[in-house]
């Protein structure tokens, strides 16, 4: 049962990571990255690593995500009209 959960979580991690890189809009990519970070927090919990889970939530997903959102906002502020060019 727990293995099935682990496999599911692994798949979700890989999917969110893939979408982070592949989704065309950078804003959505950052959101997906934060989702990835939260999923990773779960993974750390599953690995008996509560310290990392805390740090991942606070730093990996939280602060890094905020930094990224801030950067996206700054980039948008300069160019309000056009979408990000295809990467």
């Amino acid at each position, binding site marked *: 049962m727990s293995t099935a959960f682990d496999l599911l979580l692994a798949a979700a991690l890989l999917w969110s990571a893939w979408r982070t890189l592949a989704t065309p809009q950078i804003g959505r990519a950052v959101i997906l990255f934060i989702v990835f970070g939260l999923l990773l927090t779960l993974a750390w919990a599953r690995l008996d690593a509560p*310290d990392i*889970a*805390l740090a991942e939530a606070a*730093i990996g997903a939280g*602060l890094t995500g*905020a930094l990224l959102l*801030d950067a996206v906002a*700054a980039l948008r*502020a300069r160019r309000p009209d056009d979408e990000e060019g295809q990467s």
Partner: protein
Amino acid sequence: MKALWRSLTVVALLGLAAALLVAVLGLPPAPVKLAGEVATNLGASGVSHPVTAVLLNFRGYDTFLEVAVLIIALLGMLAAGLPPPPPTGSRNAMLPTLARLAVPLMVLAAVYLLWAGAFRPGGAFQAAAVLAAAAVLLHLAEILAPWPRDRRGPRLAIAGGFLLFLAIAAALLANGGLLRYPPEHAGLLIVLIESGLTVSLAVNLAAFFLLRADKT
């Protein structure tokens, strides 16, 4: 030509992924088990939580250098040129209220995390991250103004925690090694270092958001 290179890269990466999977899934057990060593020496480490013991005692030297990495990132920002401050007045009207409610709770949580680190999950890093998040929240709510580059306070806080760590590391040389705690004082020294670090790291992390170019 470029497309060819890209496809070659993709093929190489797929090969790497396959090789890594094969290697990882078929790996025999490791000959050295550090978890046991940690458990054996936990008593002399001054803390009862093994991760904290590794982080601040057994491999405290890593942590010491890592704090420098954070300061370097900040210096790199200063060197490259700080981003402009965000435009004011566009904030959500709810934010200040939310911040006033949440921030005291976050500070409380941080203090708990710091204190808990000695014997259960938590510690300086997590506490600092929560404090930094609180600062960011205050900043977004426009309660906390951006820091100009030459502001003294943040520098003092960041450098202070690290210098405390450095001073203890150096003083312990007298005991025969960098950060070689005498077991009887290890707990106290670690708490001292962690408290300093919490402030230092929190301000450092917050500075990534708050340190902004002066308005001209």
